């Protein structure tokens, strides 16, 4: 249960970061992304500050520790290939982010406002995730391995 408590605390800190920096406000995000308007550099500062803390923290953890504190293996991706789905997916994500001014963290964090735009965004986001999951159910890493032997694909 300690695992759940730590995850709850981390989620709360992450959300407080988004709320305090006003990244839950699509107006501020879009005023950063719109380079022609009255530009608001706030998002850039949030991003750089998050990395200034996150990068040394990550490097310290990954270089000095063999496992996480609560006896768990590091669940870090080891894939390094630049694939069409990485590029295409990131482009689709960018288009949606640039349209709405919300990404997954702020979309979920802003749910208590009960604003129709936030609810519509976040529900549609979950639907998009589910559609991708079901369309790719046979390719998932945790799917049972296919039977070996007959190779005609």
């Amino acid at each position, binding site marked *: 249960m300690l*695992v*759940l408590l730590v*995850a*709850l605390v981390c*989620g709360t800190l*992450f*959300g407080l*970061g*988004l*709320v*305090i*920096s*006003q990244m*839950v406000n699509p*107006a*501020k995000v*879009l005023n950063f*992304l*719109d380079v022609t*308007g009255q530009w608001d550099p*706030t998002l850039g500062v949030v991003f750089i500050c*998050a990395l200034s*803390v996150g*990068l040394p*923290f*990550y*490097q310290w*953890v*990954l270089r000095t520790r063999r*496992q996480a504190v609560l006896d768990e293996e590091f669940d*870090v991706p080891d*894939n*390094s290939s630049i694939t069409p*789905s*990485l590029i295409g*997916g*990131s482009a*689709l*994500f960018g*288009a*949606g*982010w*640039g*349209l*709405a001014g*919300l990404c*997954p963290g702020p*979309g*979920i*964090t*802003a749910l208590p*406002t009960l604003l129709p735009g936030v609810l519509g*965004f976040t529900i*549609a*986001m*979950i*639907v*998009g995730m589910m*559609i*991708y999951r079901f369309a790719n159910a046979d390719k998932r890493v945790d799917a049972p391995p296919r039977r070996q032997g007959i190779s005609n694909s």
Partner: protein
Amino acid sequence: MDFTLTEFTPLSATVGGALIGLSSGLLLLMLGKIAGVSGIAAGAFSSDFNKAGWRLAFIAGLIFSAIVYRWFSGAPLDVDIQMSLPWMIVGGFLVGLGTRMGSGCTAGHGISGLARLSKRSFIATLIFFLTAMVTTTAVRGLV
């Protein structure tokens, strides 16, 4: 369409950004997990409690933070939606589909991915920042 003007707020951006970095680092140190909100949200729907449990707790924390903030500040959360509901839905759908296809979002690729110096995350971050800037600038130029 009129867009809400906002002011540059460097101080709260610094504090908030540092908290995001701290949370990401703590999650890795304590649980060995990447703080990618799109992956956490998608994985929260797993029927396996080992996979879903910590993710649901993280999401509960995100939602809880907005409520905590209102308790302590007494001020309502500023969330100025700039687009009509149908466009918010289209945006949300693209974000959901795109983050799964591309294996990450602003948090997973942008913060955690760059923090562990991943080449994949660097490319992904470059692409979604560029396409987001092009999209916003084009949409605002047209309306």
